[in-house]
């Protein structure tokens, strides 16, 4: 016989929900506006979304650290705040990319923006909870929204991409819930902190390790799928190619950050308990991912696809840090993604600027290398900026990503995984080749027919975004210090 439940408003601590409430409200608002008055210009929705995200940003900043709320399913610790901020920044940089000079019809639907905001909310839920249920819901909300957004790009590619992503996502979801079920079966709890407590007790039991690791394994598949670790990454290049460049750029960051946080919470728990099997699973996955995807990136003909593989490899790179289980390692993850965000989004935006309605230099690819050859002669500034992004991705100092790499590798070294650090180093060297390849095309090859139309899709907002990204990428060295200290604080207060 169940007891009736009494809940006091105070104990709900609804403030913890405020960011999500804001953004969901915003999404609804957009839909309502659309209901009231049809076909308003997209710029309105863009600006509205930015404002909403901005408010959300403020709300997130105002959150107190290490609070729980809403039946204690919400967990507002440093990590969740940091990750939410990252997600919001990325989103704010993403939205303006809708304001292109060419017309891409997905942006003319207000639903696009509504969905986008729902997706962001979903990601925020993912990172702001340690309750498996909520994580799952957030994950699915975000994913479903994302599938739709991809599909809305409405090219043959985009549909195929969406369906691939969707199906694999469904499978991943299956794995996730099954893993959750195993954990639940072992501990009778769905809150990770409870689960942790019970594990502490039951670790000693004989034969426990099989279900223990089995559960981790199932969850790992789901995580691996989302952060695209080999061999669960296969959707990534296709989906990136199928979807619009900004969407691809967005996907290379936000979902991964969100899932990284979930991974930190779940796998981190295992690693923390010293389950070597899990630690090694992560390391091996990471190494395989960064190495093989690097090599696959070498042989791509399309820049976007190359960037897809490269972002896989970056994910693997960061994933390795997860296995180290040190504050520095966890901090490095956020630092890395913080820097990666600007560079990568910038790079994808450059592709977006160069986007035309139909592939110009290749029957299938929109952004084959050849398209950029001799860019330095026709659009020097564009070439230089793109080069800066590429060098940053390569990890050439003083550009932003170097500092990220530096910190990750340093964390690895501290944890005593010298060999891993070396592998990371060599991988960056391999990666250098395909980033250079683009630079070589832009700077060292003669111009091709139609390279002057590189700015086909150019528009002020896009240029501004690129400008911000480039500026950040070049001058990052000066903001590393504050960023680092902030992140270190946030991560350490969350007890990682």
């Amino acid at each position: 016989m169940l007891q009736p439940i009494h809940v006091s408003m105070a104990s709900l601590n609804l403030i913890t929900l405020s960011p999500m409430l804001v953004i969901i409200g915003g999404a609804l608002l957009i839909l309502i506006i659309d209901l009231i008055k049809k076909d308003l210009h997209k710029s309105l929705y863009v600006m509205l979304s930015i404002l909403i995200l901005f408010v959300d940003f403020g709300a997130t900043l105002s959150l107190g650290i290490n609070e729980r709320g809403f039946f204690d399913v919400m967990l507002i610790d440093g990590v969740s705040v940091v990750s939410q901020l990252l997600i919001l920044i990325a989103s704010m940089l993403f939205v303006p990319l809708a304001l292109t000079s060419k017309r891409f019809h997905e942006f003319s639907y207000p639903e696009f923006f509504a969905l986008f905001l729902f997706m962001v909310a979903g990601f925020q839920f993912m990172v702001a909870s340690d309750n498996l249920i909520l994580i799952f819901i957030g994950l699915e909300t975000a994913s479903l929204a994302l599938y739709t957004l991809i599909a809305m790009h409405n090219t043959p590619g985009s549909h195929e991409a969406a369906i691939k992503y969707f199906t694999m996502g469904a499978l991943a979801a299956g794995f996730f819930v099954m893993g959750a079920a195993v954990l639940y079966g072992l501990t009778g709890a769905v809150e990770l902190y409870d689960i942790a407590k019970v594990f502490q007790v039951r670790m000693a039991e004989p034969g426990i390790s099989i279900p223990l690791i089995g559960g981790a394994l199932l969850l790992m598949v789901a995580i691996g799928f989302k952060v695209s670790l080999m061999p669960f990454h296969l959707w990534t290049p296709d989906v990136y190619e199928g979807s619009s460049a900004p969407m691809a750029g967005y996907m290379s960051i936000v979902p991964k950050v969100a899932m990284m946080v979930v991974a930190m919470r779940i796998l981190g728990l295992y690693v923390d308990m010293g389950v070597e099997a899990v630690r090694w699973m992560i390391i091996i996955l990471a190494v395989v991912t960064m190495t093989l995807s690097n090599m696959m990136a070498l042989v791509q003909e399309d820049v976007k696809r190359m960037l897809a593989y490269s972002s896989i490899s970056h994910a693997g790179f960061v994933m390795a840090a997860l296995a180290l289980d040190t504050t520095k390692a966890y901090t490095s993850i956020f630092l890395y993604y913080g820097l990666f965000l600007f560079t990568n989004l910038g790079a994808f935006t450059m592709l977006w600027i160069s986007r035309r309605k139909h592939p110009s230099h290749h029957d299938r690819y929109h952004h084959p290398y050849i398209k950029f050859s001799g860019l330095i002669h026709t659009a020097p500034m564009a070439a230089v900026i793109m080069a800066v992004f590429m060098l940053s991705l390569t990890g050439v100092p003083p550009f932003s990503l170097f500092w990220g790499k530096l910190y990750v590798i340093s964390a690895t070294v501290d944890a005593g995984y010298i060999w891993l650090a070396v592998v990371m180093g060599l991988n960056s060297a391999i990666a250098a080749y395909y980033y250079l390849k683009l630079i070589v095309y832009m700077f060292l090859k003669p111009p091709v027919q139609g390279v002057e139309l590189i700015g086909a899709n150019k528009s002020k907002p896009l240029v501004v975004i690129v400008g911000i990204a480039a500026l950040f990428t070049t001058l990052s060295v000066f903001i590393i210090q504050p960023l680092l200290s902030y992140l270190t604080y946030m991560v350490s207060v969350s007890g990682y």
Partner: protein
Amino acid sequence: MENILSVLIFFPLVAAMLGFVVKKDSIRVYGITVAAIEFLLTLWLWFSFDTANGGFQFIEFVPLISDFGINYYLGVDGISLFIIVMAALMTLLGIVALGENIKDLKNMIITLLFLEVAMIGVFVSLDAIIFYLFWEFSLVPMLYIIGAWGGEKRLYAAIKFFIYTFAGSLIMLVGMLYIAYVYQSVAGVWSFSLTDWYALVLPISVQKWLFWAFFLGFAIKVPMFPFHTWLPYAHGQAPTVGSVILAAVLLKMGTYGFVRFSLPLFPDASVAYILPVAVIAIIMIIYTAMVAYAQKDMKQVIAYSSISHMGVIMLGVFAMNPEGITGSVFFMLSHGLVSGALFLLVGVIYDRRHTKMMSEFGGLASVMPKYAVIFGIILMASVGLPLTMGFVGEYLSLAGFFKVSPVLTLLGGFSIILGAVYMLSLYKKSFFGPVTKEENKKLHDLTGRELAALVPLVAIVIWLGIYPKPVLVPIDNSVKALVAFMDQKAQTPEAKRIIHVSRSTKEAK
């Protein structure tokens, strides 16, 4: 002017940025002026440098990422001082010597200025990460120079150069991070400052793998056998100015790294690995000298010859006594000037005939006497004739290493024979004998601009050959300090035995 080092770094940087604005037709003058000012600044640095003091001077320290111990930390001592001066000089002469017919000169000059920033930066930074920053950044302009103005295989050469060096230095980076980690676990705070690291006494086992980690980074740059194969391509494809800078300055980064990092940080490991390093160095000396002799292309001869000479420098560095190390540092300078001059000279003939094949020439001495004379003088410097700059360095390096191992030195000494062999045969093939080719009959002799670039080099080469003291003494003071420091830091008896502190230092104690 206490912050002159920052000025030296940022002046060319700013100048390069502003260069974008300058109109194409006046860019040459702009470039020359900027480079000249930079050179004068380095001279000023030299004259305001306290030669008696062996320690670091003009120190600048600005916290950059204090939580992670990365600081903007600059300083020079006798070892780096002259390399900086040389870097500025070679950039200046390189720009002066730029041919009329070179395409998009503007980009070239701006790139060179960026390159100069990186070069100066490497030699003045006392913070490992800042050092690494400049070290890596120097690859980018070089990549562009080789790739944009190079020969038909330029892309291959450029990428090979970049990736090869990049890979090596990343391993070095891991090493650096490990040292920083050790420092942090000892001192409690993060620091990448070289001077802090010097205080660190690493256990032998750690030293040993760290030594190889750094070795990889530096050896590829030097380049040491068997990591040298990028160099012939780079030189073969690069335009004249590219080769000049590459040979004169970029290669020195490697040997400088050994002196600045490997020796003081891992004295015991360095001593322990003298033999393998020396063997590699001797392979470089003899084997590459032979390869040089086999070349048909003038430029390749000089490219391989510089590998061979770098071998002698390596011997000097690992001599573990002031004579040798001072010699090797001095040899870095002389080799920089001499090989730079040689590449300029090859460039001269290449501009006229668009070929570098020795078989295409012969009897040039009759057609271009001035050219022949200057080439001859530089050539004699390169084979280490006394009273030219080449001799002092080579002699001291070998003399120093003789203390460590007479037999190996004897082998290393073959450089003076084999050097003569390939250099003289080059000279004979292209300058002596009758003028066979019709098109060579009416080649015009050196132009004013070429003379302006070459004569100063000849003058310096002879001046410092006859009176090297003003350069040797500051270097020597710093090196003595270095060796004394290594000696007191050394742990193994072997190291204690091999590292040889000069008498004068002992008396000073």
